[in-house]
């Protein structure tokens, strides 16, 4: 276009070089604003505790894995004489800890908590999406009595912040013994997410022409087979997008997790603040936990990125 220097006609829709540059600059600035905190967390996780609280903040420093060592191990303080009498250190972590006059007492709770997070977040996402897909399909394809009222009711569960019902849920859970259980947390997050899933997926399934299933049913499939073999593959985009939204909620949820879990079923969000208290303000360990905490959702989102992009703009433009 204008790269040739000769402009014979202006397109009213194609961006010009200048608007492109401005748009690019805005995107870069915005990306920096959102990325810097994440970057800072990753950087902090590789600092020593002293570097992490240095003022002015250190941009150049010697990287250390002390944060990760402290995250994965519990330590106890010992006298230098005791440490000197020990057999030689077996690894880098051992060495780092001993240099602070401490010894490794055992593994920390981070791995079980991380596992809890994975089980609860993915479990509830799977359930919410599965229930949501079936419900949405039902609403989309059958004459459900009072369909609109029911859909409104389903949506109305999101009218208030879920935490508003925290106390009744806490009491209920205590009465039926679901406090601090993984299944309790899975059920809770599923209940919160299923309304979102139903509404998102109903939109997607409405867009799939019924003729596909009808053709399959005439060709010999049952309704359920047609649903599985014909509708599901076509709803994949919507299902992926919905799954990401549900997973992000369940993965990051903090308030219920603090209230309802303390040990057995504790997830990462309430666990991370605990780390600060274990032996002074150990910011590198907190940063290390946060950095690790980000990874699964990042991987999941990147894997489904294509679907997500198509998913949130779905229906806006005909293909």
């Amino acid at each position, binding site marked *: 276009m204008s790269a040739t220097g000769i402009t014979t006609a202006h397109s009213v829709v194609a961006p010009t070089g200048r608007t492109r540059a401005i748009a690019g600059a805005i995107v870069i600035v915005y990306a920096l604003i959102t990325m810097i905190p994440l970057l800072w967390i990753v950087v902090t996780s590789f600092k020593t505790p002293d570097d992490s609280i240095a003022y002015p903040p250190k941009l150049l420093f010697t990287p250390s894995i002390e944060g990760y060592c402290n995250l994965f191990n519990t330590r106890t303080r010992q006298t230098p004489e005791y440490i000197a009498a020990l057999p030689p250190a077996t690894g880098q972590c051992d060495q780092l800890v001993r240099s602070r006059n401490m010894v490794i007492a055992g593994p920390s709770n981070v791995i079980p908590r991380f596992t809890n997070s994975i089980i609860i977040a993915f479990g509830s996402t799977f359930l919410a999406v599965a229930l949501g897909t079936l419900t949405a399909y039902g609403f989309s394809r059958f004459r459900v009595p009072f369909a609109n009222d029911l859909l409104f009711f389903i949506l109305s569960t999101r009218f208030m912040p879920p935490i508003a019902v925290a106390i009744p849920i806490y009491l209920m859970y205590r009465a039926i013994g679901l406090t601090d259980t993984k299944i309790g947390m899975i059920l809770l997050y599923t209940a919160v997410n299923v309304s979102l899933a139903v509404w998102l997926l109903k939109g997607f399934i409405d867009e799939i*022409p019924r*003729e*596909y299933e*009808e*053709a*399959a*049913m*005439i*060709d*010999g*499939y*049952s309704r359920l087979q047609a649903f599985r073999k*014909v509708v599901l*593959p*076509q709803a994949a985009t919507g299902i992926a997008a919905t799954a990401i939204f549900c997973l992000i909620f369940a993965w990051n949820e903090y308030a219920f997790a603090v209230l309802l879990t303390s040990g057995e079923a504790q997830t990462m969000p309430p666990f991370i603040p605990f780390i600060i208290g274990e032996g002074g303000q150990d910011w590198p360990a907190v940063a290390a936990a946060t950095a690790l905490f980000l990874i699964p959702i990042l991987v999941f989102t990147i894997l489904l990125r294509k679907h997500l992009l198509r998913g949130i703009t779905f229906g806006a433009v005909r293909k």
Partner: protein
Amino acid sequence: MAEIRVENLHKAFGEFVAVRDSTFTVADGEFFVMLGPSGCGKTTTLRMVAGLELPTSGRILLGGGDVTFNRAAARDIAFVFQLFALYPHMNVRQNIGFPLKCAGMSRSEIRARVEETARFLRIDHLLDQPVSRLAGGDRQRVALGRAIVRRPMAFLMDEPLGTLDTEFRDLMVRELRELHLRIKATTVYVTHDQLEAMAMADKIAVMSRGIIEQFGTPQEIYDRPASMFVADFIGSPPMNFLAFRGGLRKGAASVRVNGADIALPEIREDRADGELALGVRPEYIRFDDASRLRGAVFGAEYLGTTQIVTVDTAHGQVKARLPADIAVNPGENVGLAFRGEKLSLFDKSSGRAIHTALIDGARHG
């Protein structure tokens, strides 16, 4: 292949009656077209025959067996949809082979049958293409392939040419008719396009508001319409109606319209004075200065070999199809003459045709 019998089929959605007591028979190997404006119940009828919709009452028999409440899959019919409904995540081969796969046929047999079908429809060069890359006509051929590959008892088609452009549509009309002649499959075809219906059908049922207005061959429907609705719906331009008042006597062979005696087929019923309509197709009208039925030329549409001349008369506007070389001037006073043996009479209030030698000739079965 098999005969399809529909007996007193009724379908109501709440208050709304989509199909009212429909009864018809599609003979083995017949190409049957249900024709009517949108919302007349033709698609609902077809969907009930297919098993995609359950009737409120009535029976559907396929090859003698009652299938009224059978699942679609258990009816051994094939359905071609308006939007083709090709599975977008499968290629042409998989689409055509899908019904066979559902039936649990072996891979090699599916392969052979799919290839045979594709050759038959001349789409064998497209077998490994994704369906999203096909043109409209080819998509339609794939949809047909998926229907015929299974060799079902009957084909049901719901406006299969509705989304094609005119040129393709004419081509597909010929191909469908040719296909029908080759495989002689019992076919129920739904359309709102009278040209498609006329060109392809052995029998047509014209539907309106859930009711079959007339059932017959294309010729019968065109020449001997059973109601004003049919007369108006079929033909382009449609049949002209000259409204007049009068009584009818059995055995008479003319009616008196505004002082002019108009000859028509022998009347077979007595009727007291009432509002009537004389039905005449545009091509059965000519100009005749001697005629006492007169009007003023309103305008003319030139169509190449013919022209459609609109004439204002005391009984309403009349459109005549005349040879293109007749000179007509707007405002000119002309006399109209009709081909008597082709005229129809209707009771204006009910819209039903009055029994005449012409209409009774159409009664069959």
